[in-house]
């Protein structure tokens, strides 16, 4: 294992210290329990938005804390859901009297820990609503699995819900909007390499030099299918085809196209993938009205990408375009 760390057990905490040192003007960091919160929280009268998940997906979620997006994020251990006490304290810290929305990716641990936190928050008299994202089309048989995983759409939902909360929407309205984003969004990812959790010291799975894994999640867990490596054009056709046919997205639709890097793939390759996505979608009569390209929901140093499409309407577009000022996503501010 070759990593830019001091000690495996200190990575999460030391990264939090780095975030505090770098972005202390915008966010505060609590270490016990661990959460990152807007420096000006709670914003009175505004719905608070909390998300969280295992560490190793940076910049998600901590990099998305700030005006126009999340009020707080709870980082767990590497690839491990955070605990209910972290979520409860974060929820209290952002409660400005209008209630708190939990945005939860559909992973067994995240769902159970957030469920317990919501019960505790409600016990403390805070109105809590939860929306579980589950946009990963790679999971086909959701009846006999833990259900579709929450992946790329979570980033878009956090941005759009953050704007709606800024716009003065109620907790019920922001939660409905979050569900709408999730309903209109689909994702799928692929890996060229595995990744190594520092405390484990070796790659989570083995992938040969000429192999790729299609339909991966974001925790280094193997995907649905392993196959010989193909050119970017064919890989993007596989991912985009599965996504488009699932919703389905149709000719005349206007979408936000999100090409995400898994952590180890350079931006130049993501632009190659975006070129192919643009071609595949325009062949199908689908217009890309907005895009996001870069590593936003990663899996440590895994090489590969995921594609997320979100069908846009005027309201979603307006909230996407609204100002955002976070360490990892910033425009109009």
């Amino acid at each position, binding site marked *: 294992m070759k990593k830019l760390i001091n000690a495996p057990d200190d990575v999460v905490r030391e990264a939090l210290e780095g975030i505090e040192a770098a972005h202390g003007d915008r966010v505060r960091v609590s270490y016990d*329990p661990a959460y990152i919160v807007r420096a000006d929280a709670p914003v009175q009268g505004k719905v608070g938005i909390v998300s969280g998940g*295992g560490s190793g997906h940076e910049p998600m979620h901590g990099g998305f804390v700030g005006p126009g997006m999340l009020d707080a994020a709870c980082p*767990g*251990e*590497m*690839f*491990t*859901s*955070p*605990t*209910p*006490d972290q979520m409860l304290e974060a929820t209290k810290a952002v409660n400005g009297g209008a209630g708190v929305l939990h945005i939860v990716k559909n*992973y*067994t*641990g995240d769902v*159970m*820990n957030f*469920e*317990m936190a919501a019960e505790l928050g409600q016990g403390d008299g805070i109105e809590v609503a939860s929306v579980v994202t589950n946009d990963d089309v*790679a*999971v086909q*048989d959701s009846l*006999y*699995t*833990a259900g579709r*995983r929450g992946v790329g759409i979570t980033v878009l939902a956090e941005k759009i819900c953050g704007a709606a909360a800024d716009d003065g929407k109620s907790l019920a309205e922001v939660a409905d909007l979050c569900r709408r984003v999730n309903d209109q969004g689909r994702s799928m990812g692929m890996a060229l390499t595995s990744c190594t*959790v520092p*405390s*484990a010291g*070796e790659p*989570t*799975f083995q992938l040969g030099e000429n192999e790729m894994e299609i339909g991966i*999640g974001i*925790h*280094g*867990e*193997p*995907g*649905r299918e392993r196959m010989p490596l193909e050119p970017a054009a064919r890989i993007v056709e596989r991912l985009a085809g599965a996504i488009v046919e699932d919703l389905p997205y149709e000719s005349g639709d206007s979408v936000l196209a999100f090409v995400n890097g898994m952590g180890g793939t350079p931006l130049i390759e993501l632009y190659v993938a975006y070129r192919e996505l643009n071609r595949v979608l325009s062949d199908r009569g689908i217009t890309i009205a907005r895009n996001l390209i870069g590593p936003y929901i990663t899996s440590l140093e895994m090489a590969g990408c995921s594609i997320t499409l979100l069908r846009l309407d005027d309201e979603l577009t307006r909230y996407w375009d609204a100002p955002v000022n976070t360490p990892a996503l910033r425009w109009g501010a």
Partner: protein
Amino acid sequence: MSADSAAVRQWVEAYAAVVSEHRGELTRLDQAIGDGDHGTNMDRGMRKAVEKLAGVPDGDVGAQLKAVGMALISSVGGAGGPLYGTLFMQMGQSTTGKEELDAEAFADALEAGVKGVQARGKAEPGDKTMVDALLPAAAALRAAAGEGADLAAALRRAADAAREGRDATIPLVARKGRASYLGERSRDHQDPGATSSHLLLESAATALAS
């Protein structure tokens, strides 16, 4: 014989030691069909549980088990935190105010714990989860208690049943948790959660044998 709070403390400490010893194995099993953090997470959680238990006075077994549950819930994360946390919380709930557990009381507690695990995780037998080790263990414990076995003998039968349940997860296709995303590829792997649950019963049988 029965187990008082000093014995329960020994059990928790024994489990923490066994988890630490098997940390690598649990992680390897989890890397094969999950995300490779089960050993690390359980080790961290049980260390916290032992620390927290040191501050709980002897006497009430229920209070001890609840303290272990709270420590796990607030330090493990993942799926293991809420599930093992709930297991201990419900066992603690079932034994509140009790200063000693005989085989019957231990069976009541384990049944309550497993019920809590199923309510939180929604797993059924055969889903390739910790429930596949815990349910047979609870049934064996109940049967042994019903036949008048003492606690040590009853826990031995429970631990053996948990081992069989753990081994029976190998050919199963996972239907819960991250392993479920592998579908058929989850076959021929031993479930890490069933493995750590067997270790829990095995530590009970060993620590409470005398």
